[in-house]
């Protein structure tokens, strides 16, 4: 069937089963918008392109499907960059479609021209500049295939205006044939056998699992394997939900803000089974103290992740689910009671905790209450910093795809648009963005998107008037010099101030009035006894809600391992 290029792109989205696209129109991408407008695909107009790409990312993380976002050329495309990099670091499948100036104007510094292919090359899994309308069906097919298979990631399709209005034959290919791209799925049986030999002879085994388990939909297999063999489990930030947070075998998150039990286990284990985790510096701390006595088995879909940071004894390249199924077949209960009991005792004696206060709201208490009042059933997104760590600590994630957070890139402003994406995917579920007062302002304009699309997203701002994690580091490592981390500081304030108190100027903006200005509901909570009621009200409300919790201003995230220190050098607070 003959049709214009822009329509081909829309047809391809239909073939891929895409139900929603997040985007923002502009000159060169208008033909696409004209066609999608006539189709039965939901289009969510965000207020900034970065909101669109984060929303597509949140949608992808919540569903496991490919998220799609669209922007125009030049500034539209460059506004996607942070979101594409976010998805790339966390291996999230996204197809980003950008407009481009006509082919014969490329390179001429045309209006709204940017070399987005060049700019995005290091932060995409792959990208295409479409030069011929006839290539569109193949390119779209490949883009979706590459985004979702292997180690997933963002794929960018740059669509020049003249290509999108040129006409060609549309026949969507059934198969993909890319000679340089054949991801390995099933693990090497011999390596699996060798790994199981190590498992059987281990005295102090530990499973260290990451986001790859969620990507591979291998949570069930991981849980079955760990329970069958009785091996304790720690998860990375990205892995939260991959193994039930309430399971007795779960030691908590490891790393810079890991639990004492998890970090101790990582130090003392004699066998580390790493699954879908990449030995990131925030998880390992100083490498010489990370599992120094352990043999390491590493299961990962990406060979480049293996022996990148830590030399691995048994690498198994492939799909975590397939490999865990194989391992499960020969798994048996291990006689490691003393190791397990030791860790359980450490876990019991060193729980995540904070000093309760009946006068001031503690941020940890807010997260605990959200956990309690949603019955642990909510989808939680986070911003980045203290809010992210408290959301990781005080909400126990029993299921995958319920904790959506920018782990690798650490993108402030991620959580709210991601919550929009998750809520679009699951209109009936409770979605909370656990935010800081700094982060939320990076993408606050998406309130309009949430309100106009009638998305009952709840934003819980843990408002301490600071860029909290920066302030915490300044307190601990920079002689308590609060340099530009106070968000209340005005011209009239002293230049040097590390003593926030009652005389501080009022916070800007007033989040309650801001919510109301957007047509959302705003609730300010100043006292601990009102926290529960406010959360209940937000959950029950069909509106987009901002909960502005005025929390203890100088609360710190503990436990903490200083950057570059060994994982066992834990500050308890």
């Amino acid at each position: 069937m003959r049709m214009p290029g822009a329509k081909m792109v829309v047809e391809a989205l239909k073939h891929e089963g895409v139900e929603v696209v997040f985007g923002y129109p502009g000159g060169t991408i208008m033909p696409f918008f004209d066609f999608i407008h006539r189709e039965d695909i939901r289009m969510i107009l965000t207020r900034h392109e970065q909101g669109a790409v984060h929303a597509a990312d949140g949608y992808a993380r919540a569903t496991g499907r490919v998220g799609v976002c669209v922007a125009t050329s030049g500034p539209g495309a460059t506004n996607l960059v942070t979101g594409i990099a976010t998805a790339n670091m966390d291996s999230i499948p996204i197809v980003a479609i950008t407009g481009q100036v006509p082919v014969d104007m490329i390179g001429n510094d045309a209006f709204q021209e940017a070399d987005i292919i060049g700019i995005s090359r290091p932060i995409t899994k792959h990208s295409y500049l479409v030069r011929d309308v006839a290539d569109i069906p193949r390119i779209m097919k490949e883009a979706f295939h590459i985004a979702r298979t292997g180690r997933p990631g963002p794929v960018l399709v740059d669509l020049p205006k003249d290509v999108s209005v040129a006409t060609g034959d549309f026949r969507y290919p059934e198969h993909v044939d890319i000679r340089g791209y054949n991801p390995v799925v099933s693990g090497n049986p011999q390596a699996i056998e060798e790994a199981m030999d190590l498992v059987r002879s281990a005295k102090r085994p530990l499973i260290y699992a990451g986001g790859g388990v969620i990507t591979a939909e291998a949570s069930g297999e991981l849980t079955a394997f760990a329970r069958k063999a009785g091996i304790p489990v720690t998860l990375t930030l990205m892995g939260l939900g991959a193994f039930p947070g309430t399971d007795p075998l779960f030691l908590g998150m490891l790393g810079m803000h890991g639990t004492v039990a998890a970090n101790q286990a990582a130090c003392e284990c004699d066998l580390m089974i790493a699954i879908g985790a990449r030995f990131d510096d925030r998880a390992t701390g100083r490498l010489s103290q990370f599992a120094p006595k352990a043999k390491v088995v590493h299961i990962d879909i990406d060979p480049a992740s293996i022996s990148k940071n830590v030399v691995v004894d048994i690498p198994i390249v492939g799909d975590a689910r397939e490999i865990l199924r194989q391992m499960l077949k020969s798994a048996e209960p291990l006689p490691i009671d003393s190791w397990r009991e030791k860790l359980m005792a450490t876990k019991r004696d060193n729980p995540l905790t904070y000093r309760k206060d009946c006068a001031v709201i503690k941020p940890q208490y807010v997260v605990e209450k959200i956990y309690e009042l949603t019955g642990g059933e909510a989808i939680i997104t986070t911003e980045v910093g203290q809010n992210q760590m408290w959301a990781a600590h005080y909400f126990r994630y029993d299921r995958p795809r319920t904790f959506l957070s920018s782990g690798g890139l650490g993108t402030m402003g991620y959580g709210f648009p991601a919550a929009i994406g998750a809520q679009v995917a699951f209109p009936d579920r409770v979605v909370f963005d656990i935010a800081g007062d700094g982060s939320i302002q990076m993408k606050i304009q998406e309130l309009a998107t949430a309100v106009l699309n009638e998305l009952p997203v709840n934003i819980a701002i843990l408002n301490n008037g600071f860029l909290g994690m920066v302030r915490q580091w300044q307190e601990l490592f920079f002689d308590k010099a609060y340099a530009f981390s106070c968000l209340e500081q005005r011209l009239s304030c002293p230049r040097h101030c590390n003593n926030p108190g009652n005389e501080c100027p009022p916070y800007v903006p007033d989040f309650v009035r801001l919510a109301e200005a957007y047509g959302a509901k705003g609730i300010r909570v100043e006292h601990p006894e009102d926290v529960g009621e406010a959360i209940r009200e937000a959950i029950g409300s069909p509106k987009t809600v901002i909960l502005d919790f005025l929390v203890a201003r100088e609360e710190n995230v503990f436990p903490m391992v200083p950057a570059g220190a060994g994982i066992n050098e834990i500050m308890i607070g």
Partner: protein
Amino acid sequence: MDYTLSVLVENHPGVLAQISGLLSGRGFNIRSIAAGETEESTVTRIIMAVEGDDRVIDQVKKQLDRLIDVIRITDLTRVPSVDRELALVKVSSTLSRRAEVFQIVDVFRAKIVDISHKSLTVEVTGVTEKVEALIEMLKPFGIKEIVRTGRISIARGEVVPEKGGENRTS
């Protein structure tokens, strides 16, 4: 140590930029890089000389292999191969010293490919060490300009050894 990788890539625009960007972005050291079409018009071969140790090169290979446009990577470092580099060297040479230059060029089986009143251009082909030895010998005459292709290599015999192919993926 110097490693030689022979990389087959799709002959797409931007693929060389992608590869050099990846290598510089991840902090790998490239001695030289040479690209050219192959017996198949849709495929380009890139020969790169990379500095590092076994672990670094392992990462280089794996990271290159992640690129969708990379079809195959062959590590020629430890297999018998024919290695060549071509250099053009412009040397100052007055009439009185020309004979000396000619002699040196002769010893190295190089060629004089251009000549003027004040300079000579020497073309030399061979392994990197030979090229460098000749350049060293020509230095006393005054080298005005050097143009080098970078190393290209091909495995000896009929079989093309494959390496880095066993772990293909993402």
